[in-house]
Structures are given as C-alpha cells and as structure tokens.
C-alpha cells in the first residue's frame, strides 16, 4: 500500500524535528558529521516511523527488523532518530561526544539501545547485514535487514564481496539504501574515485535496483514496498540525496561532511530547516 497523504505529512513532521535535533546535538557535541546525517534523514524517518517492525520499549525484540548503518559516521543522525522513536530520552544526547558518554560519533551497540550493529569503519555493514539476513533465513524468521550505505563507502572492496554474497544466497530479506549524495570527504565521488555507472554495478552483481529521489517520501515508500515484494535476491535502493539537506548553506558542500556550529551558524541552520518545512 502506498503511503497516504496523512502518512507523508506525519513523516515530514518527523523529518523536520529530526533535522532540528541533529543541529541541536551537533551544538551539544561540539561538532558532528552533520552533512551525511542530514542526507540520510528521510530514509531513516520512513523506515523507523512507518516501515520497520520495532518496539522501542523492547529493543531486543527477537522478531524486530534490523537496521545496520554501514555509513556509521551518520551515527549522530541515527541517535536522534532512536531518541525520537522512544528508545531513550532526548536529554541523553546532551552528552553526545563528551567524555564518558554512551554516545560517541560512531554508535556503540553495547551502549546505545536500538542500535543493531556497531559501525564506523566503512565497508563493514553490508557483510554484517548479509550475516543477519542469512540468520533470519536459517531461523525461518520473517524479519528483514535494512542496510544504509554511503556512496563513497562503495569504494571499499568489502562492499562488493558482500554484494556478491547477498546475491549468491538470494537474500530477498535484505534491503539496502545507497545514500547517493555524490560527496565523500575529499570532494565529489566522481572526482575522487569515480563510482558511475553505479546502478549498473549493483545490477551486474545480481541485485534488484530501484532509483529514487531520497528526499521524496512517496518514492521512498514505493521503493520499500517494491523491495519487500521482490523475491529471489536482494534489493538496492539508490537514493539520490543532497548532503546537508535542509540547511541551505550546507547543501551539496563537502566541507560540511563534519563541522562545528557557533550560535550564529546554528540559528541560521535551524531557521533554514524551519523554512524548508514551511514552519518559519
């Protein structure tokens, strides 16, 4: 069933508040991977607030859907989503990155409820996801594994080892999202190490591929529905996104991969997000 207009309105509200909270947490943390956290936001919002079977009161629920944030530096964004979903209180984020906190830049599964795998070293998450999906098949369980990849991250050879395995084992319970924001740290992916034709690469590895606008909830929803219905292999949803989405001065800028915000910049960022959602 496609997302209804009401669903979309609800998800937009969530995305608005997640984006604001990412800025707020970046201030508390003294800096953060704000660009990539903002580009993945709508995908995470659709998954956690509509599609994934989860129980924030019972993070270990056996039958829950799993999500592996393979681009683990998006941890600041996932931490906000998990707070918003009710795994823990927002206030805990005030200590993000501080000495002794449970929250570092890259989330630790043993310390943060709701995190399904500790990530941060790029190129690991898809292999872990293959293992999870294989485990679900072995158990004849119906839960799915979602994996969020960075585009720059696809430079890692291990991603392609996992890609081959996912098809080999015909893991139709594994759904990947590729956050195709066209940037890594040192600049544009196509200049640093060209990835294109990227969709063809996934196709040639035997994956079902779907290309969408990663900031359009109707398209995100539609892609997830199709991926869930697809049998016989894994699906990669290649989501065109904008790094820094929602904060005008960050959008499309590699320099905002990681950054700190003074109060003036933070205010501008929040105002920009409010404008984008017609809240100003």
């Amino acid at each position, binding site marked *: 069933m496609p997302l209804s207009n009401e669903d979309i309105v609800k998800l937009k509200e969530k995305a608005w508040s997640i984006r604001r909270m990412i800025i707020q947490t970046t201030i508390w943390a003294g800096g953060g991977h704000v660009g990539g956290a903002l580009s993945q936001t709508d995908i995470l919002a659709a998954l956690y607030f509509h599609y994934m079977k989860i129980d924030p009161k019972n993070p270990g629920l056996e039958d829950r859907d799993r999500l592996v944030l393979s681009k683990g530096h998006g941890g600041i964004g996932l931490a906000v989503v998990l707070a918003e979903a009710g795994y823990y209180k927002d206030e805990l984020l005030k200590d993000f*990155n501080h*000495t002794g906190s449970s929250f*570092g830049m*890259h989330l630790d599964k043993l310390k943060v409820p709701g995190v399904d795998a500790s990530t*941060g070293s*790029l190129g690991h998450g898809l292999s872990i996801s293959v293992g999870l999906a294989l485990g679900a098949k072995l158990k004849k369980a119906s839960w799915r594994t979602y994996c969020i990849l960075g585009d720059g991250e696809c*430079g*890692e050879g291990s991603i392609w080892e996992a890609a081959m395995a996912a098809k080999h084992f015909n893991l139709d319970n594994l759904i990947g999202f590729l956050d195709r924001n066209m940037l890594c740290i*040192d600049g544009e*992916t196509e200049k640093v190490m060209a990835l294109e034709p990227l969709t063809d690469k996934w196709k040639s590895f035997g994956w079902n591929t779907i290309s969408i606008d990663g900031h359009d909830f109707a398209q995100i929803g539609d892609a997830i529905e199709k991926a869930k219905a697809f049998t016989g292999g894994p699906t990669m949803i290649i989501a065109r996104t904008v790094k820094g989405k929602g904060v005008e001065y960050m959008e499309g800028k590699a320099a905002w991969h990681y950054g700190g915000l003074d109060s003036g910049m933070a205010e501008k960022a929040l105002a920009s997000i409010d404008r984008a959602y017609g809240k100003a």
Partner: protein
Amino acid sequence: MAETGLTYTVYDADHMTQAEIYGAVLTRLGGERPDIVALTADLAKSTKIGKFGEKYPERFFNVGIAEQNLFGVGAGLALAGFTPFISTFAVFTSLRAAEQVRTDICYQKLNCKIIATHSGVSFGQAGTTHHCTEDISVMRSFAGMTVIVPADGIETAKAVAACCDWEGPVYIRIGRGFEPRCYENDQYDFQIGKSIQMADGSDLTVIACGPSVQHAVEAAKVLKAEAGLSVRVLNMHTIKPIDKDAIISAVHDTRRIITAEDHSTIGGLGTSVAEVIAETGKSCLLRKLGIPDQFAIVGYPDDLYNHYKIDADGIIEAANAIMGTELEADEDWEDEF
C-alpha cells in the same frame, strides 16, 4: 640527501598540528626528491598529505575509500622505483590493510613510508572504530618494519625527513590534533633507533613515546620538587629497532622503570621494554602505563589520558607506587611456592 635541520620554529610547532607539519615537510621534500609520490584513501584533508597533492598533483593519488587497495597500489609504485608516502588513519592502516602492509610492502622489503594519523585515543570522541591502540603491536611484529612515534610536531618533522633516507618500510604514528609541544626548538640530534634523554635521574626511569613524553617530563619536575625524586626520562621515539643500550643503562642505574604510551599495554612500548629487561637477566621493577585490555571509552583525548593514567598525574601516581615497592631478594620467594 634530505636535509634534516628543518625550519620548524616554536611558532610552527605551537600553531600547527603534527599532521599539518607532516604535510608541510612532505611538500618540501617533494621539491627535492622527484622519486616521492603520495597516496591516500579519501583522507587527503584529514591527514594533510593533501598539501603535497596541491603542489604536485601529478605525483599524488587518492584511491577513494579503499585502504587495502591503497597499500597495494603503494607497493606497486615502490616496485616501479618510487618512494611512496602513504597516509590514512592508524586504525585503517594497521588493521584494515594489515596484510597488504605485511605481505605486499614488508615481505618485498619495499621502500614505503607510512605516516598514520589519529593514532591511540587521539580521536577520542570518535570511539573504538577510530581509536587505534594496537598499531605499535601489529606493526612492530612485521619483519623489517621500522616503527617511529614522534613526541611532538618538531619531532614529526625530523622523523619524516629522516625516514626518506632510511632503507625499507617505515611506520610513523602521529595523533590527531594539538599534542603538547615537547621540544623548545629543533636543535637536537634525531636518529632513528636512538632514544633521547629528556632528563637524567638515578631513582627511577620513565620511558615514554608520543604525547606521553611531555607528560613524563612534567611528572619528573613535579616528582623532583615534591618528593625529591631523581627521575630519568627517555623519549623512546623509535619502538623498532629499540634502543637496547638506553634501556639496559636504565635498568642498571635506576632499577625501576615506568613506561607510558597512548597504546594498549599489550604489545607496544611497554612490552618492547619488558622484552629487553627480561633478556638482561637483571631484576628490575616495571610498570606499564597505557590503555588496559579494554576498548577505551569515548572522550576528549586529554580526559582519556587522565582517565587511563598516562598523563603527568598518572605517571606521578605510578612513580610513588613503584618507589614504595621493594625489589625482592630471591630468598623471599620461597613462601610463595
């Protein structure tokens, strides 16, 4: 031959990170040596190797986020007769690409110079995925690898210049940010494999590397003033080949040794020193300060150095404890068996 007397002034050392100094030195060396090429994996900005790339784009290769490929490509360039400088974070160098470094570079005795940044817990807030408290242990176990841990920015400049003329693979580990300055100027003799005595003493020796050197120097001053202790401080900037003579002299002269490092207590400087002590056959008390057998907590580097007792406070505490411990005579052991 690369000049080692560098123009790195106290101003530079105070205003540039170790990595920035590395980038500047490498760029200068690039002008003198057309055989130098530089490689990174999407960390040109973070490791500052990109400075070389700005000046010599045709000799600079960014392979994207692919560390195993990075070190393999570096090996190939060395086989083709170049002197590759290769930089990414320490964890991705020593763990992700460990086999490429061992088998492609060390096994073939290739002239690759690996400058790894963000070592130890210097990228404290990033957590375990970005900490690297195992690299000294891993790298020193590779046959033929030279392992250097500069104490500060000035020493980083000297080490980078010195490794150019040192035959074979070299691993230099530096931190992330503004490590404390240890040297007043660059007027001292830096030789790979030769430790530097920062202070002489007869009661106790502190052997340190990296940011712990400055902490040890401070601790020695406090221990002198407050406890009247005479503390020798050795900057063991080269972990391999290690300066055995300096360690043996310390055993002989002081009988009490503390090691301090931003690294696991397993396999790093402390273990290297312990190996030398054990082979002397002489009794000596040893305390190894470092990250214990745990994944470190998240936090600011200075807080973590304090938490894990590898800063001046921690060294002072360990010094007082070790001074209160007697060296047991062999007969005293009888009742323990």
